[in-house]
């Protein structure tokens, strides 16, 4: 008898699935030749990447520990005392202080107390709504447009349109559409629901979410459309015989079998929403009353309106750390699963 892992390995190898065999091949010892080839293949990218992305990022990282005068290009370390130590982490301390509980969480409710935390709250709220809805929405649209309907191409293009419009244009357009006298209220007025959606702090973030969804669903749709092609028909048939109807099939077959797509989509969506910026700025410049100030908008303002580039960098790296930890964790889980194949 072969051990279970062996037989699994060989059974998948026979199935010819490359995903798995690649995952299973991690242990092979790289050779000199492979090292050279790998090096040559990645070198163009590594050069461009290091020079134009990694380098600047590291530079910004250094700046995040400085009070930097952007006009003169000079800076001095942002010294501060933390737990009795003198460290150049002034920008970081500055952003995070006071911690929200030190003002009875008020900074999460009103931007008047501490804008950073308020922006964090906005971002989290935005992400919490937009990411899942965007994913599910993209999934549903893909599901609908995957089936045998006429004019698929046009429908797909319609849903993909937002991706093609520039952020500036769509921000402005949406502001118009959602304004007191906009098209939306034209429909709502007769039922007495007309409201300044874009101009009220109560609804502006909601409106921004709407725009986020509008923009994201089309992109996710494309990714999901692709993922859907890979689900074996037999699974649907098995489910049909098992008595699963339409919705059950989606729940038990379609959805779980899009795991890889989900991963890709989720990572992109989270990164995308944490970076929601262009549209937010064009839509309401972070207002009204800071209602649409997300962390990235705040970073922008800090950098370019208040010219505190060091502080802005600190914010960005704090944000980065959070997103990275999250993504890395997901990636690890994903990897484990892949290896367990």
């Amino acid at each position, binding site marked *: 008898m072969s051990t*279970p892992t062996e*037989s*699994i390995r060989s*059974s*998948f190898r*026979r199935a010819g699935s490359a995903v798995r065999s690649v995952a299973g091949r991690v242990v092979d010892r790289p050779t000199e030749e492979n090292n050279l080839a790998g090096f040559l293949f990645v070198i163009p990218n590594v050069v461009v990447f290091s020079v134009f992305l990694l380098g600047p990022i590291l530079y910004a990282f250094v700046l995040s520990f400085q009070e930097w005068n952007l006009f003169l290009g000079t800076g001095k370390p942002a010294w501060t005392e933390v737990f009795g130590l003198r460290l150049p982490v002034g920008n970081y301390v500055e952003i995070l202080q006071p911690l929200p509980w030190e003002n009875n969480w008020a900074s999460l409710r009103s931007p008047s107390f501490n804008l950073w935390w308020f922006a964090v709250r906005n971002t989290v709220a935005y992400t919490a709504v937009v990411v899942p809805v965007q994913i599910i929405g993209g999934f549903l649209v893909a599901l609908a447009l995957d089936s045998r309907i006429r004019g698929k191409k046009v429908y797909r293009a319609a849903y993909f349109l937002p991706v093609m419009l520039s952020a500036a244009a769509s921000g402005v357009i949406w502001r118009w559409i959602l304004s007191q006298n906009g098209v939306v209220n034209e429909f709502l007025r007769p039922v007495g629901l007309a409201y300044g959606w874009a101009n009220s702090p109560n609804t502006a973030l909601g409106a921004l979410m709407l725009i986020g969804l509008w923009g994201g669903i089309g992109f996710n749709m494309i990714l999901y459309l692709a993922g859907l092609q890979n689900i*074996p028909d*037999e*699974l649907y*048939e*098995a*489910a*049909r*015989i*098992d*008595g*699963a109807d339409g919705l*059950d099939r989606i729940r*038990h*077959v379609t959805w*779980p*079998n899009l*795991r890889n797509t989900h991963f890709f989509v989720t990572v992109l969506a989270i990164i995308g929403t944490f970076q929601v910026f262009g549209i937010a700025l064009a839509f309401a410049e972070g207002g009204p009353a800071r209602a649409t100030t997300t962390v990235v908008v705040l970073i922008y303002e800090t950098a370019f309106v208040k010219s505190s580039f060091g502080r802005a960098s600190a914010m960005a790296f704090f944000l980065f750390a959070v997103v990275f930890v999250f993504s890395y964790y997901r990636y690890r889980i994903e990897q484990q699963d892949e290896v*367990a*194949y």
Partner: protein
Amino acid sequence: MARTTLDGVTKRFGDDIVAVDDLSLEIRDGEFLVLVGPSGCGKSTTLRTIAGLETVSEGEIRIDGRDVTDVKPKDRDIAMVFQNYALYPQKTVSGNMRFGLEMTTDLDDEEITRRVEEAAELLDITELLDRRPRALSGGQQQRVALGRAIVRNPAVFLMDEPLSNLDAKLRTQMRTELQELHGELEATTVYVTHDQTEAMTMGDRIAVLESGQLQQVGTPMEMYYEPANEFVATFIGSPSMNTLDATFDGEHLQLPGYTYELTEAQREALSADLGGDSVTLGVRPEDVVLADEPGPRTTEFVASIVEPMGSENVLHLRHEMGEIVATVSGGQRVREGDRVRVSLPVDHVHAFDGETGEAVFNRTRTEETAPGVVGTSTRSDGDTLADGAGETNTGDRP
């Protein structure tokens, strides 16, 4: 009761492709029917119409007397085992097995768990219940797929080449397990395969399809000894039956360089049933006799290839009239290039109408009790060896 009846079932894809062509077939309650035929002959399609995964274009399907032609798969009281298992990758083994019950019945959790565990025990996969399919070997996945079908306790099992993805050893083992299972459950089973051994050993009856049309249905021995036509004759049995083109001159069969003498009965059958005068003479490799002595039905062949297989040697014999294959015991030596005297025993040959392929006469079926049989064990609970009790619904044998 789960008699399953196909009544004039036709399945067309588009306008041109007729995958199943006016198929009528009755599968008896508790029967294990094996569906065989060359690739693309419509085996899977037939199974899928029974399952309700495809609509039928014409005809009617009845399970247990009930017309299920327009009934959804889940309401047909069937379960299906797919060639590539089609297990839900995200569910554990027990999740896979429960699913059907959860969807179609109101059983409470406990009852479902009980049933799943019972089935798992039967299939010896109890320790695997919490694993996910990808952590299972092919054979284990196979058993889970079976378990998923079993727990539902359906009236009819449908299996589409369930063993074809397994390697030889595992396949043999699973085959035995499946047979035992069928013995225990006694559910009506329709089983598609392209494996000779499976077809011969597993089925109560075998149905042979070609180009969507039913060629013959009968017990394995019937199919073997009394094929309805040349197609069935060459399809069943491995190595295939040898066929030689001959002409019937009213007396003998004339082959190039060889005159084959017939018995009285054979002559009569040929005279009565033959359309033209061309006949295909068939003889199975194991019936080809290497004759010590020249005789009326012997002639000389040259061994072109000899394949020693250990237990037997397969000889490829060449002659003016064509090439035939003969199997001889592994202990008997023939060298490539040897001239061999071969006899085609008159009681072991088949004749088919050279034009229609219909069987004109088949070999006589002699069966004798094997030597060494000294009695019947009282422990026996097995069926008798299938002995022609089945019916054939096609083929007009003499």
